């Protein structure tokens, strides 16, 4: 590895200033630059996050009292449907795609994605899909839940439901275009020196994610098109009134939508695997175990879908099969969690915003993982299915997991994307409020579910009011926590300290170019002079008189 080091020296040429820079207009146009597209994805995703979050706050306000007094029950059902759909399809999935777009070519030393135009098309399907979905509020938003089970979805408002179907089809297609790009780019466009076992773990996790997208999304598409026929043309694929079978829809829906959970969490598993070693100054513990466990999760994720249907139309033997496969997923997930813990153990931890969000991710996702194993056990799942225990569980996985991972990723790569550092104080306040608000909101929901509160209800038994009140207060803290975040991002964008090339002294390739990276990504063919996580070794050059740190500092000073 060190032998290639000398070639690295002249990497920062003096004519750096001559590179063309991105104009702000580029970010609003049909750009084929993966970095522009990545930022377009990220900003769009956060725009929808604020809408989805506002809907959640309306729901929590309604649930502070047992009676449906703040909003009408019908509107409540529209809120819960839209909240779920927006958060999943317009926030977390696009946010994962944002980092994949931004980082994959940089991490593997490529100039751009394999299919830049397809990439731009994929992004530009999201705003129309999102606006279409929002438009349903003006003529009766869908109200059958984000699962849209027939027959309910067939009888509760035609236009809203059809708009929902169309926008999911658009967003799903966009997600498939993205996945085609990720797989091709990762497999074919790595720089010559980088074999598949020396690419960053984020790329492994995107490989696993993209596989799931490509296998799962078409099935969802098929289900939704058939549902659309039932809705508009009066066919009876799923409508029992004409001899159709609503359970078949559930199978097709969950065949995509369980893997979708991994589509939402795997990119952030990857991000965490990048963030922890950098800020702990230690190699990632068990590179291959983490890489292969992503693939294992991805494969197993395809054969567990019916655990969402244990109390539905699933015969006994099938329940047992899906219980076994679901339980097994705990093994690769456990490997990851233990490996991450071992990565920070004995390191030299910088407790900056990115790192504390990553630790917050570990501690919250753990709870979601443990309750997930419990839910795999059929006899227990039968009790808590469709209750607040489930609501608590998936928020611990998707909020405690994906969202904490997402914020960690934002704080970690913000200097790369903008060339400026974030404000650490505001970042830590953001973390503290998010973490506290999150746990106050969702921890009591476990108890609510066990005690007998079902989900998706605007009116509930008065005995549950105290705990619901607690949840509502927590959700307000969570809402307030976005303010330090927004202020931080805007302030740092203009006033933040200049970041330089590699403020974290990280080893992956995206940090070896300018911040923000020049349009062609790298000055010249990048050189792989260290593995992605070779911290603690290789600190001496071959002559033995210059530290890598010194050299990196020199490099960033020049940059």
């Amino acid at each position, binding site marked *: 590895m060190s032998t290639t080091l000398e070639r690295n020296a002249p990497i920062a040429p003096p004519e750096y200033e001559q590179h063309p820079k991105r104009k702000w207009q580029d970010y609003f146009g049909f750009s084929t630059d993966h970095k522009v597209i990545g930022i377009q994805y990220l900003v769009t995703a956060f725009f929808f996050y604020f809408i989805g979050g506002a809907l959640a706050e309306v729901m929590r306000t309604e649930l502070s009292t047992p009676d449906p007094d703040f909003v009408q*029950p*019908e509107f409540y*059902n529209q809120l819960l449907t839209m909240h779920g759909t927006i958060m999943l399809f317009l926030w977390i999935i696009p946010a994962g795609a944002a980092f994949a777009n931004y980082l994959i070519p940089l991490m593997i030393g490529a100039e751009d994605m394999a299919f830049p135009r397809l990439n731009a098309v994929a992004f530009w399907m999201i705003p129309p899909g999102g606006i279409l979905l929002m438009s349903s509020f003006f003529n009766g938003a869908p*109200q059958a839940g984000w699962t849209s*089970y027939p*027959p*309910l979805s067939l*009888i509760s408002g035609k236009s809203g439901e059809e708009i929902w179907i169309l926008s999911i089809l658009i967003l799903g297609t966009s997600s498939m275009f993205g996945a085609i790009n990720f797989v091709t780019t990762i497999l074919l466009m790595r720089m010559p020196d980088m074999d598949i076992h020396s690419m960053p773990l984020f790329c492994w996790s995107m490989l696993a994610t993209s596989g799931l997208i490509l296998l799962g999304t078409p099935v969802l598409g098929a289900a939704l098109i058939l549902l659309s026929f039932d809705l508009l043309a009066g066919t009876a694929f799923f409508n*029992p*009134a004409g*001899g*159709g079978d609503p*359970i078949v829809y559930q199978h097709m829906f969950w065949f995509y939508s369980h893997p979708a959970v991994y589509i939402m969490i795997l990119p952030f598993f990857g991000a965490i695997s990048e963030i922890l070693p950098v800020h702990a100054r*230690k190699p990632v*513990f*068990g590179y291959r175990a983490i890489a292969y466990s992503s693939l294992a999760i991805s494969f197993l994720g395809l054969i567990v879908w019916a655990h969402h249907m244990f*109390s*539905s*139309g*699933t*015969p*006994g033997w099938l*329940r047992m099969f899906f*219980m076994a496969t679901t*339980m097994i997923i705990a*093994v690769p997930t*456990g*490997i990851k*969690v*233990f*490996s991450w813990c071992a990565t*920070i*153990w004995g*390191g*030299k*931890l*910088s*407790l900056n915003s990115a790192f504390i969000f990553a630790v917050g991710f570990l*501690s919250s996702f*753990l*709870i979601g993982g443990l*309750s997930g*194993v*419990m839910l*795999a*056990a*059929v*006899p*227990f799942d*039968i*009790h808590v299915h*469709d209750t607040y225990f489930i609501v608590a569980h998936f928020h611990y996985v998707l909020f405690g997991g994906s969202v904490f991972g997402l914020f960690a990723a934002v704080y970690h790569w913000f200097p790369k994307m903008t060339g400026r550092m974030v404000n650490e104080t505001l970042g830590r306040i953001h973390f503290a409020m998010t973490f506290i608000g999150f746990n106050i909101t969702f921890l009591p929901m476990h*108890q609510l579910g*066990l005690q*007998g509160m*079902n989900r*998706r209800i605007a009116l509930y038994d008065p005995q549950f009011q105290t705990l619901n009140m607690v949840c509502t207060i927590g959700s307000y803290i969570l809402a307030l926590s976005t303010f330090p975040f927004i202020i931080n991002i805007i302030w740092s964008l203009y006033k933040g300290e200049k970041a330089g090339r590699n403020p974290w002294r990280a080893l992956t390739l995206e940090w070896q170019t300018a911040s923000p990276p020049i349009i062609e990504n790298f000055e010249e063919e990048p050189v792989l002079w260290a593995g992605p996580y070779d911290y*603690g070794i290789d*600190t001496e050059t071959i002559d033995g008189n210059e530290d890598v*740190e010194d050299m990196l500092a020199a490099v960033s000073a020049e940059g």
Partner: protein
Amino acid sequence: MTLISLWYGQNHGLLPTAASSDAGDVDQLFNFMMTIATGLFLLVEGVLVYSVIKFRRVKGDFTDGPPIEGNVPLEIVWTAIPTVIVFILSIYSFEIYNRMGGLDPMTAGDPGPQMAHAHHHSQLVALDPNRQNIALGLGASPDSKQGINPLEIKVNGIQYAWVFTYPETGVISGEIHVPVNRPVALNMTAGDVIHAFWLPEFRIKQDVIPGRVTNLVFTPNQIGQYPVVCAELCGAYHGGMKTQLYVQSEEDYQKWIQENTFAMNDEDNQSVAMNPIPSSDAEFLAPYAKDMGVSSDTLAQLKPTENK
């Protein structure tokens, strides 16, 4: 740590009363899982908290940590331990599930969807009542007393009410009354959309699906009044779709059946308007009735049972 886990696993106080022996089994499974989960939780959170405190970077120290890239024996251990845990959990859950009657061969075979209109015909709901066959759900426990004939009740879920029919006596009710210590077999279907029949105190739940029959068998062992909750989104007033399950002594149950049988007969001779005593369900639903679009038929179905 082990002690805390063991203690918390048994004393979390998170579950409501268990009103059947199967519910007790489920609780034991949950307590067992809670014990393991608490242990793992303390272990991992402990490592995190310890690391964050102990391994902070000293100010001004820009060197790296030790270059440990992995440890194969350790990795094998933490792959093997979860594997063993989930293996044990799977076997334990399988055992409990079997004890609950989930693998009753008669229940496990699903005949597939029936034509939706067919559920109005009683023939289809109980293809063969004596063998409690058909459909999805939980059957009789293998070790249940074979001698006792289960009490059959037909359940119909409609937006937003439950209707219970007792084929033995012809009683139709909006509440469900059952005698204690006798197995109850529910044959369930839905009239419009999917609902789910949930008895939190019995830890059982089964979706109720239009065009199909699902069933649940349980044996209550504690006299009392328990909520019946719909647990599948079924429309705007999904949250209001609940009723009560009364577990009564054999005498009280017989009394209730008789009163309601008479009431039904009375009803035949009177017009509905002559019987103005409102039911608790009707009272509950009345304010919402207009919004919910509950037809007068639906309310009338509930009424005869509430004359007491």
